């Protein structure tokens, strides 16, 4: 049996810098781990001393891919801290924005980051000539997500109009209507995406773990992205303000960074966690797709995160159509977004494409930030990724070095990690 000595420096097609190291000796796994080699960025330090109206613009820069999610988690935290209740219109529009981001991010991940592995190429670029129709479709769907953001928040990367207690500019109803029409027109493309992914067989891996996501508050019927309590598949729920009891970011003596842990030794967040925890709340259209993709809740194969993203994309597309209908029927009204800054501490929890995201701030009575904390999905997933790798390697140890390396990279990519955004994940080395 060949022994493996794998070191993938800067895994590609993920956001940020991470390495994979795997070493076996006489068929025994010595090491199988994911190391983060990102440079620290100190966002929480940058927030201290800044005014309430500057915070969102600073923290969206944590991550370009889930900039809207960061903005929303941040606004929710600031609003909680200052006891601000945004209007229903604000909440609905924010949900549309978040859906836009989910569409853009899920299609970016499924097509551009994950699919090349299944099609045996290094990137989407060679597909531009070999599978032009697929690439054109992928670009079209991704663009739809982007255009949703552009219509409501100005641009997807570092959204503009999102503000505490409202919007700096409300979208033009006609533009919103046009977006809705495009979502409807995109349904066949989404269908084709489902068809494409239904032909793909994800690698085998079975490991039961804890799944954490938002869950419905008081019998809410909505598959939660923007609102809700924090729930664990092992049974327990928390208000967002108690997020620290969920992620328990602690300094593990063995490691050099803050890592998260709830009940089980590690937990997973993201599309599959949401799917497993909230399957019943999926729209029927999405449930049908799950069936077609052979995905049943709970599912314990992390490679299926990609499949869960496809299911979610369908859910979100249909939901968008309804949400836009709701907003347009009620009519978009100018609102008074003024608020008085005040002292307080608050947390916001939002489901961004890669999983649950927490922001929390403490403000003084002038609305100057005294303390900030951001816990990013990938930070929460790191332990789980490592546990998965440890479980995976013995099952594939007989394969060639290239195959093992690829399967490990695919596993990491399935989590769609956002490493540069993981504010607390610096130089994580599992020794």
């Amino acid at each position, binding site marked *: 049996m060949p022994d493996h000595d794998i070191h993938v420096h800067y895994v590609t097609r993920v*956001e940020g810098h991470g390495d994979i190291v795997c070493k076996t000796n006489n068929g025994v796994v010595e090491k199988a781990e994911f190391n983060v080699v990102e440079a620290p960025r*100190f966002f929480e330090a940058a927030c201290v001393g800044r005014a309430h109206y500057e915070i969102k*613009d600073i923290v969206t820069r944590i991550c370009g891919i889930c900039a809207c999610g960061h903005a929303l988690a941040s606004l929710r935290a600031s609003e909680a801290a200052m006891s601000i209740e945004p209007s229903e219109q604000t909440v609905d529009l924010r949900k549309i924005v978040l859906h836009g981001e989910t569409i853009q991010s899920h299609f970016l991940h499924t097509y551009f980051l994950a699919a090349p592995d299944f099609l045996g190429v290094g990137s989407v670029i060679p597909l531009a000539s070999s599978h032009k129709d697929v690439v054109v479709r992928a670009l079209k769907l991704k663009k739809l997500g982007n255009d949703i953001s552009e219509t409501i928040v100005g641009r997807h990367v570092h959204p503009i109009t999102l503000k505490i207690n409202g919007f700096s500019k409300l979208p033009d109803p006609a533009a919103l209507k046009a977006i809705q029409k495009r979502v409807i027109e995109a349904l066949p493309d989404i269908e084709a995406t489902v068809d494409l992914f239904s032909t793909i067989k994800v690698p085998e891996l079975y490991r039961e773990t804890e799944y954490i996501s938002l869950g419905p508050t008081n019998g809410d019927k909505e598959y939660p992205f923007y609102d809700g309590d924090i729930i664990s598949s092992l049974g327990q729920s928390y208000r967002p303000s108690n997020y620290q009891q969920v992620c328990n970011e602690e300094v593990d003596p063995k490691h050099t960074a803050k890592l998260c842990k709830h009940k089980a030794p590690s937990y997973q967040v993201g599309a599959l966690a949401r799917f497993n925890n909230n399957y019943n709340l999926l729209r029927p259209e999405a449930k049908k797709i799950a069936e077609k993709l052979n995905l049943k809740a709970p599912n314990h194969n992390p490679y299926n995160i990609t499949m869960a993203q496809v299911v979610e994309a369908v859910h979100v597309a249909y939901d968008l159509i309804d949400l836009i209908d709701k907003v347009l029927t009620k009519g978009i009204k100018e609102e008074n977004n003024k608020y008085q800054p005040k002292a307080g501490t608050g947390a916001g929890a939002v489901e961004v494409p890669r999983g649950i995201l927490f922001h929390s701030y403490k403000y003084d009575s002038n609305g100057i930030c005294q303390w900030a904390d951001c816990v990013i999905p990938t930070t929460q997933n790191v332990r789980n990724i490592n546990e998965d790798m440890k479980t995976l390697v013995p099952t594939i140890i007989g394969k060639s070095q290239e195959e093992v390396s690829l399967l490990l990279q695919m596993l990491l990519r399935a989590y769609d990690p956002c490493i540069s955004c993981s504010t607390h994940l610096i130089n994580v080395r599992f020794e």
Partner: protein
Amino acid sequence: MSKPRIAFFDFSCCEGCQLQVLNCEDELLDLLALVDIVQFREAMTEADWNFDIAFVEGSITREQDEPRLKKIREAAKLVIAIGACSGMAGINAIRNAMPVDKAKEIVYGNKKDAFESTFARPIDTVIKVDGYIPGCPIDRKDFLRTVQALLVGKKPPDHDYPVCQECRLRENECLLTVGIPCMGPITRGGCDAIEPTFGSPCIGCRGLVSEANIESCKQMLEKHGLTIEDISKYMTIFNSFQKEEKHA
């Protein structure tokens, strides 16, 4: 003539600028007809060190970044800094205002010594840079214009005029006239005044114009009800890095 080969690299940043490149959905296929993208970690596994133009995103924050950046410089004919982080240290430089140790402590508590980090710096403190695409994030059109300019042999556009110019041409209602302080008058244009167009003040992500009248601008903002302290903070969301700063 063979197609120019371009590559993307990143240091400390949010990768939003590279994402902006991927967000050129309508143009991406045409772009691929003009250039070969040979390295782009965020989007591709293939990695070739034979390229003409390197687009570099992100700030330099660690000693270990320097040799990697120098290697890029050696390989490339042209190095273009993309984004505020790379061109002027941007948001990363906020923390330069406090001792690195303090920043580490705020975020990592007593584990602070486990991380290597120094000042956040723009890449031109380490290597020579041939052009800049400013912004946080970069503007997609600006990116495409820059690629075209380089292909026809021009310098990248420098947009050395204030954001107000484009804001006025778009016929936005000036935010100052409705009482919202805005950095537009001293901030470099080229973004089509996107923030004011969406009702939000310019926060200076493209850096200062070369002849920024900061004194007068401060007085003006004070008239709009900001304190000097507010103003200096406002002006440092992206513009903290001072060229004189030596790295620690």
